[in-house]
């Protein structure tokens, strides 16, 4: 039986698909029964989702213009 504490320790293995079929079944069974761990899994997925949508900083106009000037030289 997988405890809640153990589940938080193996969650990345689960999300990365690095679990044996038996462990995966145990994980799924626990998630099915435990709303707290469902909440934890959902929080983790939202966290990962937010990381993937973090906007990069925009390029400062002067840096961009310098690069465009280099591009014109390069193309000459």
């Amino acid at each position, binding site marked *: 039986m997988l405890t809640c*504490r153990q589940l938080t320790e193996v969650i990345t293995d689960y999300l*990365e698909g690095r679990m044996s079929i038996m462990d995966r079944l145990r994980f799924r069974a626990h998630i099915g029964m435990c709303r707290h761990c469902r909440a934890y899994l959902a929080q983790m997925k*939202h966290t990962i989702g937010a990381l993937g949508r*973090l906007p990069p900083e925009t390029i400062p106009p002067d*840096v961009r213009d310098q*690069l465009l000037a280099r591009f014109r030289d*390069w193309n000459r």
Partner: protein
Amino acid sequence: MYYRTGPDGRVVNVQLPAPDAADTMRATHPEDAALVARLLTGDEAAFRSLVEQYHGRLLRLAQVFVGDRAAAEEVVQDTWLAVLTGLRAFEGRSGLKTWIFSILTNRAKTRGQRDKRVVTFSALLGPHAREEPPVPPSRFTASGRWSEPPEQWDDVTPERLLLQRETRALIDRTIAGLPDGQRAVVTLRDVEGLDAAEVCNILEISETNQRVLLHRARARIRSALEQHLRRR
């Protein structure tokens, strides 16, 4: 070698052209092929959009390897110049993004070494090598059940999380404060979306190591978000 029959009936030897770079690229990365073709004709708008799309991401990546911001900016500048230098020979076996990222990481690593910045990417070395539980043990009962369970994030979605400037800043700060290895892995994997194999390759760490670092980094960021949302 290929042969065909010539007009006079003799068998002639035909030299087939090797598939050129553009053909390879059209087959493997069609959008990249169109963009590279435009760049090679000197299309400034194409270069501008490339730079606008990748500059911030390259800066984020460079900071994984080099200590200070100014050095990271220099590495990114150098990378763009190297992209221009290499573009005519770019064969498109890898995608354009992978190619640009690999130029960046090579340069950033070299720069990091030159600046004698010692970066420990391994989870098994460094000051945080000891066991680091993803959730404090105090939140569980002795039998391992939640005693202080996580809240339901009912109205939370990744998009909504990022709408708040302070939440974005919190995530950025939390990433910046992670130990080098965790910061490197989570930046490459979750922020930039590289796959596990690429990340192991770039950071020269094992797959297990990579997963441990990713796990710790994600757990810390989740925990920071949890505290932040509770305070609101």
